[in-house]
């Protein structure tokens, strides 16, 4: 059964949140970029497979972002020290206005 729009959005929000939890800048940016890219391609008729795959990915991201937090390093020279989770809301707004 294809996933509903609401389910997809919830998955998207969770993936963004998990990606944001990465302590390491490059991984965080990569998975945020990947999430935006993947969910743009989510509009197909039958998205069951993509949705199930997305759930698996979410599991990986949650585990790995947690590990990333257990072994923190200094921030990179391009990273702001006062950075907050400001992007999730903005990204979600952008995606809902697109659809």
């Amino acid at each position: 059964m294809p996933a509903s729009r609401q389910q997809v959005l919830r998955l998207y929000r969770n993936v963004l949140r998990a990606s944001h939890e990465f302590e390491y800048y490059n991984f965080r940016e990569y998975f945020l970029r990947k999430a935006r890219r993947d969910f743009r391609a989510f509009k197909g008729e039958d998205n069951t497979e993509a949705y199930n795959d997305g759930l698996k990915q979410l599991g990986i991201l949650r585990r790995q972002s947690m590990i990333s937090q257990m072994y923190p390093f200094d921030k990179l020279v391009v990273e702001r020290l006062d950075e907050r989770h400001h992007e999730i809301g903005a990204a979600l707004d952008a995606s809902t206005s697109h659809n």
Partner: protein
Amino acid sequence: MSLITISDTSLMRFAQLTRSVAAVSSRRLFATSAARATSQTSVNRMASVQQQQQQQQQQLQTDESKANEGHISFKNAYRDDSKFGKRPIYLDMQATTPVDPRVLDKMLPFFTGLYGNPHSSTHAYGWETDKEIEKARKNVADVINADPREIIFTSGATECNNTALKGVARFYGKRKPHIITTQTEHKCVLDSCRHLQDEGFEVTYLPVDTDGLIDLELLEKSIRKDTCLVSVMAVNNEIGVEQPIEEIGRICRKHKVFFHTDCAQAYGKIPIDVNKMNIDLMSISSHKVYGPMGIGALYVRRRPRVRLEPLINGGGQERGLRSGTLAPPLVCGFGEAARLVREEYDADHEHIVKLSNKLSDSLLSIPYTQFNGSKEHHFPGCVNISFSYVEGESLLMALKDVALSSGSACTSASLEPSYVLHALGADDALAHSSIRFGIGRFTTEAEIDYVINAIKERVQFLRDLSPLYEMVQQGIDLSTIQWAGH
């Protein structure tokens, strides 16, 4: 001082810069003093010693060091550094790449529960690990359109290159004691060849043109009746030049010579098909494709069969070509990394091309810069650029906030200029002033912007210090200068 025929002003400045150091080579001297000027710690240490000795001069001294700080600080011009982190940006993806978190996720179970020996065929612990290993083997093979049975896991690309070159040479060497390779190969290929020469083999080192490409006609002419192996790397590790692998494969097949290619930098980054390209042996490394270090794979063709004499003998694992127990966490991490490079190929490639173009366009807009290697036959993730009138090592010292390299990681400890750039016909000065930028999956656009800014500023800074650059600005041809003996 040791320079003559230089304008008075530049001599003065040069003398000021190098007050305390005696006559060393002028280029080297300039480079070290510039690098020293950027080192905050040495300035501070000097200040603290003098503070103890002469209390009265304290105020004067700190004033001076403050003035120095203002002169040599690069960052404060356009932003407040206290709001940013300190860890350098990583732009050395040819040396190694970070392990992808998805790869680590695949590896962790092997450290927690899946600890069976994959070669134990009598119990379930062995079976479950073996099953995972075979999955990984398939993933690794799929990237290059090979059969999983043709993949031999080794400890890395260096072992692969050694096994391939020495293995083939020793097996067929009695009748065919001739090997062909190129001058720009990785050190482990060149060194293996040198050892084979000691054993009595003949090795032809093909030259490359100014673009870094080999001459196919010369290759065909160099193949003799007693040639057993041709070894050409697919993507160069220092300049990123892609050799015409398909054409080389065709020539080798035509003359019935085995073709080995070192694909450590090419695997998963450019399209490779071992059957279409007639590749007989191929070296692959895991840690260049976001996998773990300490694992690599050698592709050995089954039909027509390539026979090797193994370097490591033992229990006969890996078709007897590489004995020793496999490391399941590493193998499966490598397998996952291989699966990911295939899955993400289009997205990664698009991302890397975009950043690479941005970086090379911006850096080449600086005057007196040069792109090393061919521009058409080129892997975009490796950008090698020379900055004339700047010493590469001193630029690296000034760029503490970016992790870069002036060449291969294996040779970066020595200060000798890159033999690859020499093979391209570059002179010492150019080879010394080259920097390699490696861009990968995890590089971001913000990092590239930062690096462009930083390089522009610091190249300008180092050139402003350089009397040579001043002379060039005045229109003096440097090759006409007569240098006094040191």
